[in-house]
């Protein structure tokens, strides 16, 4: 009798202890903090980062219910000014002082590569969206780093293929002079080479240049049929505008923006951008679920339509919170494992999965700018859906050293 009571008490005590431990472990410091670290004031602050990205994450938190495992979810944000050192310092402060569980956005590949490495050393999950470099899940992949939405491998598969097949077989690149631009140029060159086209030359332009005229003239005199813009955001907009100003498009050369957002098209005007083809991870006017989400987002954010990066921000926040819920803890190892097991299947990513190297593989879309859409943001038609496994490099091709050969 005595022994059974003893056993009962100790069992109860054990259970209590276990429960206590569980409650303590489930959410490490009583709150789940998501950090949005992006370019809040520079060339990538519209369309990629900025208010649009923060709103997308906040909206996902609202739609999720505001709490996970009974603990509140908090969203904080900061400007990395496109500087890897500023981004790293902020991430370090977030992780060490504020106990941020996950860092997202990370537009600008140079910043993303630095922060992803730092966060992984400290066992914190990063989910990069705005960054494009395929190195994030290739040579520089990390255990806790996820790349969500698109990459420099997927972009040219759609756009460059379409342009070369249309006869644009000689290219000149205007390239943003840092990790992202060079990765995009290299990946595009591979696609062009594989289709029998050739690259005649390139100009490296510092990030956030405002005058592209002399580079455009070099491109013009190269005689290439296509001027490939391996840049993004305001840089792309400025380059396209100035190509029109200097009569380069009228002179018969074609522009191919390798990374174009619908916000860029809107800012150029569909009359200027007409006929431009570009690859995207999502388009709001693709299906009903997306249209519905865009409306909700516009209401939440106050007018501006979401780009595919914003949709990715929402989708990944949902995926992350669902993974915490399913794993029953915010422990990075368990959540990362859960994210790898889950199917990512929502309005943004159809039949997507997060691979071992951290890459979300999902379908991409080739769009073509049109005039006279029904909605002010209805700026393009979907020309082609590119299946995920065609758009992205295979696990082996990606070259992530963590993947067992």
């Amino acid at each position, binding site marked *: 009798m005595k022994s059974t009571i003893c056993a009962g008490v100790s069992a109860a005590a054990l259970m209590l202890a276990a429960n206590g431990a569980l409650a303590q472990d489930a959410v490490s410091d009583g709150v789940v903090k998501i950090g949005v670290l992006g370019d809040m004031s520079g060339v990538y602050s519209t369309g990629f980062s900025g208010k649009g990205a923060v709103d997308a994450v906040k909206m996902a938190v609202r739609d999720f219910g505001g709490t996970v495992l009974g603990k509140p979810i908090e969203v904080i944000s900061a400007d990395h000014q496109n500087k890897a050192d500023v981004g790293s310092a902020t991430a370090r402060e977030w992780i060490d002082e504020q106990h941020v569980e996950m860092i997202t956005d990370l537009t600008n590949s140079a910043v993303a590569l630095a922060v992803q490495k730092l966060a992984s050393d400290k066992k914190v999950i990063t989910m990069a969206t705005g960054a494009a470099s395929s190195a994030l899940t290739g040579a520089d992949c990390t255990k806790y780093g996820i790349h969500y939405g698109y990459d420099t491998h997927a972009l040219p598969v759609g756009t460059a293929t379409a342009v070369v097949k249309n006869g644009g077989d000689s290219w000149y690149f205007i390239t943003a002079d840092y990790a992202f631009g060079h990765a995009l140029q290299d990946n595009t060159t591979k696609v062009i080479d594989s289709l029998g086209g050739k690259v005649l030359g390139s100009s490296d332009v510092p990030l956030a240049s*405002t005058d592209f005229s002399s580079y455009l003239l*070099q491109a013009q005199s190269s005689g290439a049929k296509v001027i490939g813009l391996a840049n993004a955001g305001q840089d792309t907009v400025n380059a396209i505008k100035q190509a029109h100003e200097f009569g380069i498009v009228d002179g018969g050369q074609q522009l191919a923006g390798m990374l174009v957002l619908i916000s860029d098209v809107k800012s150029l005007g569909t009359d200027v951008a007409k006929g431009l083809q570009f690859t995207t991870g999502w388009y709001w006017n693709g299906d009903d679920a997306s249209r519905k989400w865009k409306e909700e987002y516009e209401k939440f954010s106050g007018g501006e339509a979401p780009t595919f990066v914003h949709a990715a921000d929402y989708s990944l926040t949902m995926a992350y919170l669902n993974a915490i819920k399913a794993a029953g803890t915010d422990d990075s190892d368990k959540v990362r494992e859960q994210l790898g097991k889950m199917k990512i299947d929502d309005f943004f990513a159809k039949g997507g999965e997060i691979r071992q190297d951290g890459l979300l593989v999902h379908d991409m879309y080739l769009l073509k700018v049109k005039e006279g859409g029904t909605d002010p943001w209805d700026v393009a038609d979907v020309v082609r859906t590119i299946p995920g496994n065609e758009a992205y490099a295979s696990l082996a091709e990606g070259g992530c050293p963590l993947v067992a050969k």
Partner: protein
Amino acid sequence: MDPMIRLILAQGMLGLNNGVFYAMLSLGLAVIFGLLNVVNFAHGALYMLGAFLALILYSYAGAWVGLDALHIGFWPALILAPLLVACFGMLIERFMLRRLYKLDPIYSLLLTFGVTLVLQGLFINFFNASGTPYPGMPESLRGVVNLGFMMFPKYRLFVIIFSIIVCFAVWYMIERTRIGSRLRAGTENPELVKAFGINVPLMVMLTFGFGTGLAGLAGVLAAPIYSVSPLMGANLIIVIFAVVVIGGMGSIAGAVLTGFALGLVEGITKVFYAPAANTVIFLLMVIVLLVRPNGLFGRQS
């Protein structure tokens, strides 16, 4: 036309376009240095201020006075913004620089450098760091002109012609008119000029205002071409100092001619080896300093 020649001409044209800004800014610097012996490090920031004033007049000023539809356009800005910058310059001269004339010139240099940092900080705080496009380019200057070897935007052509006229007018005023001769005399021997009944402190203040006004004018002209950004002056000021050093400190004609010439050299370098374009000016500066330490147009001291 041979494509190589065409490319050289085209890049030369763009170089001239940049040279315009070098010339206008180094002209203002030369005027200030020549008459006040002050190295105005705030010149780039005042150029930036001019561009921002044009942007503010167009995009915000209307809303501030309750008239949302009011946009003060390019032409009024071309007069208003330089005047405002000149007023700001005169305030700096009257209340700050004037106290430092008796000290080593390094003090006024440090002061103006401080003014630069304050202005940049303020504008980074209130506007985005990487630039806002200026939306107010006048309709009459939109479109392109066919120069035979290239299509050149009308506006840029206007800027080149307008600036050449301004530079010539300033040179003429200082070197060939009565006001100019008084200004020059005032710097040579202020006591003597005072004896003639001329108010030298007022003249110095107006001169500083005039030099900074030129920077403001260059800023307004630059606004429609480049994005208006808090760091636009900082990117330019180093080149401008190189131009002034090559041209010869204090030489008006030297500053203008060197500005245009270096713009051209920079542009044409882009044809042959683009990455060297940013360094070619400094390379020239080194050579000129070795061979002619007073600059190409500088007077022997």
